C-alpha cells in the first residue's frame, strides 16, 4: 500500500466487522481498515493461532481488535459479532461478509452435504450477519455492508457449480438488501475478485500449469493480491462511494469482461 493511502484515516473511530478474517483476503481487509483508523471485530472459523496473529497485527497499528470464533452459519455467531462490536466499541459502521468456502467438483458427483455446507456458510451465514447488524445501522442512520462475491458468481467455470450458485446468489442478496436499506442510509455492495493468491486456492495453484494458465487468462497478466481486494472493499465502505448502491465491483484484472 502506498504511503499516501496508509496515512489516510477514512475510518477513524469507526467499527468494522469482518467475517472469515484470520487469513487471506479477510485479514488484508482487517489490516487495511485498521491502518485507516478503524477498530475491528474479527470472526474466524477455526484457526485460532492465525486469528491471534491477525489481531496482533491490527493492534500493532494502534487499533483494537476483538476476536469472535465460530462459523457464520452457526446460529449464535452473527449475534455474537453484533454484541462484540456494541459492547466494545458502541457502534457498527461496516460489515464485510467475507467468510466463504468452496467445495469444487462436478455437479453430477456432488454430495448433498457439500452443497448444504456451501450454501449455509456462503449464503445463509452472510444474510444472518446482515440481519444481525441491520437494526443497529438503521438506528445510526448509516452503515455499509460489503459482500464478498467472486468472478464465479458472474461467470462460473466447470466444477464450480455450488460455489458459483452461492456467489451469484450473494449478488442477488446484495441487490435486494440495497433496495430495502437504501432509504435508511445503509449502502450494500459487493466485490467480485478474480484469481487471488490465498491459502484457499493454494492447492489448485500448485498444480502444474494452473498458475500460469490463470495469469494468461487475466488480461493484466498477474494474479490478484489480497491488497487489491482490500482496496476495493475500503472504497465501497468509504464516503468516496457514497452514491454506489447495490453494485458489483469486479477486482479481477480483466478476467471476466
Amino acid at each position, binding site marked *: 500500500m502506498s504511503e499516501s493511502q496508509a496515512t489516510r484515516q477514512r475510518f477513524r473511530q469507526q467499527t468494522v466487522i469482518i467475517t472469515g478474517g484470520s487469513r487471506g483476503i479477510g485479514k488484508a481487509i482487517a489490516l487495511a481498515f485498521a491502518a485507516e483508523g478503524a477498530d475491528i471485530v474479527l470472526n474466524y472459523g477455526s484457526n485460532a493461532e492465525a486469528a491471534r496473529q491477525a489481531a496482533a497485527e491490527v493492534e500493532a497499528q494502534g487499533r483494537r481488535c476483538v476476536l469472535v470464533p465460530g462459523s457464520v452459519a452457526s446460529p449464535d455467531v452473527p449475534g455474537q459479532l453484533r454484541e462484540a462490536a456494541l459492547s466494545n466499541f458502541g457502534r457498527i459502521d461496516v460489515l464485510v461478509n467475507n467468510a466463504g468456502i468452496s467445495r469444487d467438483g462436478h455437479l453430477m458427483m456432488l454430495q448433498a452435504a457439500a*452443497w448444504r455446507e456451501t450454501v449455509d456458510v456462503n*449464503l*445463509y451465514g452472510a444474510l444472518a450477519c446482515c440481519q444481525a447488524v441491520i437494526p443497529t445501522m438503521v438506528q445510526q442512520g448509516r452503515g455499509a455492508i460489503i459482500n464478498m462475491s467472486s468472478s464465479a458468481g458472474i461467470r462460473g*467455470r466447470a466444477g464450480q457449480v455450488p460455489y458459483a450458485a452461492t456467489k451469484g446468489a450473494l449478488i442477488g*442478496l446484495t441487490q435486494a438488501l440495497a433496495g430495502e436499506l437504501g432509504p435508511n442510509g445503509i449502502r450494500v455492495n459487493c466485490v467480485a475478485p478474480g484469481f487471488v493468491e490465498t491459502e484457499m486456492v493454494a492447492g489448485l495453484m500448485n498444480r502444474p500449469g494452473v498458475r500460469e494458465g490463470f495469469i494468461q487468462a487475466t488480461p493484466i497478466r498477474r494474479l490478484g493480491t489480497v491488497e487489491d481486494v482490500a482496496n476495493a472493499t475500503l472504497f465501497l465502505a468509504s464516503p468516496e462511494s457514497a452514491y454506489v448502491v447495490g453494485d458489483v465491483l469486479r477486482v479481477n484484472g480483466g478476467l471476466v469482461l
Partner: protein
Amino acid sequence: MSHPETNTPFLDGLLHQQVVLVTGAGQPIANAIARRHGKAGARLALVFQPEHEAEATALARELSAELALACESSDAQAVSTVVRRVATELGRIDLLINASLSRAAGRLSDLSAERWKAVLDRQLSGTAWFCKEVIRPMMRKRSGRIVNLLDAASGGASRVAAEGITAMTRALANEVARQGISVNTLAVQLLEEETAHLTPAQRERLDGELGPLGRLGSAEEVAEAVLFLGSSAANLTTGQRLSATGGLW
C-alpha cells in the same frame, strides 16, 4: 386484459417422442409449459410439489402425461428417486424444465430464517438437485437440454435464488457442454394468470408499474420462450439468461 394471439413459429411435432420432465406441475406457469410441450408432441413426465397434487393430477389426465409424480424438491434424495424413475420408465430424458416458481415476496432484512431457508431450499437447491440428477441420463445419449425458470418479479429471497440460479446455470453449462447438454435460464415476470387474487387497489398499483410492454404476459407466452430454449433452434445457446419479462428486468 387481453393478449395478442400467440402465433407460434414452431412446427407441429417439434418435440415428437421426446421425453420432457416438467417440475412445478399444478401451478399456472408449469401447466402452460406442459400443455405447450404436449402439443409439440412430447412425452410428458410431470413432477409436482406435494401440495399441488389435485391440480397436477387433473393436468396429467388432461394431457395424458405418461408419469405424474409428487416430489418435495428441496429433498435431494426424493429428487434422485423421482428422476431415476422417469429415466427408467420412459427410457430417457431429453429436456428438463425446472418450472416450480413460487412467488415469495417479502423483505430480506427481517425475513425469518425458516422462511428464507424454505424459499432457497426449494428454488435454488431444488433446481440444483434436478439438474444434478438428469446429467447422467442425458450424458448416456450425449444430448439433453435444461431450462431453469427464475422469478424476476418478487425480490427478496426470490431474487437471491434467481441470481444464484443464473450463476449456477453458467457454471453448469461450462461443465456439461461437451457432453451435448445445454443449460439456460428463463426469467419470468408476474403473469396475468397470477393476479386473480389481487384487490382492485393492488391491481391499480400493478397497472401503474407494467414496464415497457405496458401489459402483463401470459403463461402461454412464457411457454413459447421455453419451447425455443428446449428446441434445436437454440443449438448455440447455452449458459444464457433469456428474459421473457416484457422489457422489465
